[in-house]
């Protein structure tokens, strides 16, 4: 999944670069088309919005775009958006007292390390979780380095009646159900030499997974 994310991001960056180069070079073969397109293209898209692309459910209708490098076509893209999502496959699992821990990914870059995992309880629609605090969440254990990496946290200052509190950069769930509930946790970047880690979580047996760098 994260590989897909990065690919998508790369595509966007490359697309932006390509668009920029196209503008700068002023590709003569396309210039006339572009110029024509700015008029007819916008108006035709506007027509499409009002006919086939009319938003439902009380959604806003788009106003005519004044820019020519819009980030949306003006029509509902929901179907394509849901179609674009691909569910990740687990790379390791463990079970404990009827609950299943599935690990989908440990992906480490300079921007941090993302763990994707989920807990499920096929026989129980609602099992409370013991681990609700950042310090009780899954750890990434590097045995060779003799370190267990814990979630990145931020310290949120006291506010109103709330005390100062330390929060993880994570999904956070307080219950396990029969259905999937994907969770993410952000850790610090792992050293390049760390190629696999044991994901440890409460009483589950460690799940050994490869680290994507």
């Amino acid at each position, binding site marked *: 999944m994260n590989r897909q*994310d990065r690919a998508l991001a790369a595509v966007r960056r490359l*697309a932006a670069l390509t668009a920029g180069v196209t503008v700068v070079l002023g590709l003569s073969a396309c210039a006339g088309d572009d110029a024509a397109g700015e008029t007819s293209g916008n108006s035709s898209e506007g027509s499409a919005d009002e006919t086939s692309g009319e*938003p439902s459910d009380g959604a*806003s209708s788009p106003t005519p775009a004044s820019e020519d490098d819009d980030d949306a076509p003006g029509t509902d893209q929901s179907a394509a958006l849901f179609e674009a999502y691909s569910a990740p496959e687990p790379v390791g699992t463990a079970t404990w007292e009827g609950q299943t821990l599935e690990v989908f990914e440990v992906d480490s870059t300079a*921007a941090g390390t993302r763990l994707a995992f989920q807990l499920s309880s096929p026989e129980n629609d609602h099992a409370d979780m013991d681990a609700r605090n950042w310090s009780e969440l899954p750890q990434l254990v590097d045995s060779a380095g*003799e370190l267990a990496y814990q979630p990145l946290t931020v310290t949120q200052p006291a506010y109103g009646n709330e005390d100062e509190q330390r*929060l993880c950069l994570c999904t956070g769930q307080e219950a396990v159900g029969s259905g999937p509930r994907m969770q993410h946790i952000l850790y610090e970047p792992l050293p390049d030499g760390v190629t696999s880690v044991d994901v440890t979580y409460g009483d589950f047996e460690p799940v050994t997974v490869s680290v994507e760098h």
Partner: protein
Amino acid sequence: MRGKSTRLSALTVAGFAAGLMLIGTAPATATAQTSSATGAAEPEVAEPDIPVLGQAVGGQSAGSVDPTRQALVSLHGVRRADSSTVVYWSAGWTPDTESGDRADLTNTFSHSLSRLGLKRPHGETTSDVAVVDVEGMKAYTPVINEQEACYCSDFLTALPSEYGVDVEPAPGKAYVMYAILPELPESLESATVKVAGKVFTDVPVEDGEMTPEVDADEPILVGTGWPELEPSSIQEVGDLDRFVYSLSKNSAVLDSGVSNREEEEQTSIDISASVLFDIDEAALTENAAAEVRTAAGQIKDSGITGAITVTGHTDSVGTEEHNQDLSERRAEAVVEEITAHLPDDIEVESAGKGETEPIASNETDAGKQKNRRVTITIPGDAS
């Protein structure tokens, strides 16, 4: 039309990028070539004509719920605009979802114990947005004004509602959300983004608001436009640094009671009081020496010189006065032991904070254990 050119370019480059990915994965290449060579029909997959920088599906964070109830969260943009930052994202029930209203939808985002942003009466669940600069050790979060209103989507207006409908918003429909954050460092080209409890790494930070813009006070189906905003309006709030939090990198040394917290201006080495002292005692146990040596090794590895501080902390059990006294005596015991393992040019100071500086919740046993500690503070980044 440049917009059209951009989208065509995106598709073209997507094909090129896909080719690069296939080159990097031999089996996939073989499969693709075989498929192409045999002329097998490829299933037609629609591609959204909008930026998609990350996607994840999540279920409701609490309670017994319909297991089909799943929400898709998509990240569309992190944009610099008018000395601020705008994060564009969307959310909606998956096509297979069979029950759930818009409040249920927002409950899939993140649990309150991990939800960033100061508390506020409305819009709270859609404010769990952060742009994280891990290298800079900062997390940028949505701005909140004096009326405790978030500069972010209010789910009451961002999501449609129709009384008596089993599933609302309709399954398979995604709605645009936004959050306005303080300005990011100019040098930050990509970041990690937390949105609605999901984490996406390596997200490009780009310039300019997303277009076309549409009325932000009504539900916006994804693709029909992006909310019309005034990002500069956050400047009226003032003291925007309040919404930028410092990060802590946390790790534990295996087979010991020693853990590390690396922060922007200092590194802290915590030694669990449970392995140093018996309950309510300030004399080191027989096992304490090994733990203190481990901590001393961490300090020496950091290469620091000058002063470090050893500070005792307790959980919230007992009176404040007792905990303050206990923390001071425990710190002094550790100073006496650790000084023998450190170079002479490191000066060791002692302090006690009692129960005033917890690092975990005192509501759980695990949290209390985490809070009972002796912390060695080293100025600067010790890594």
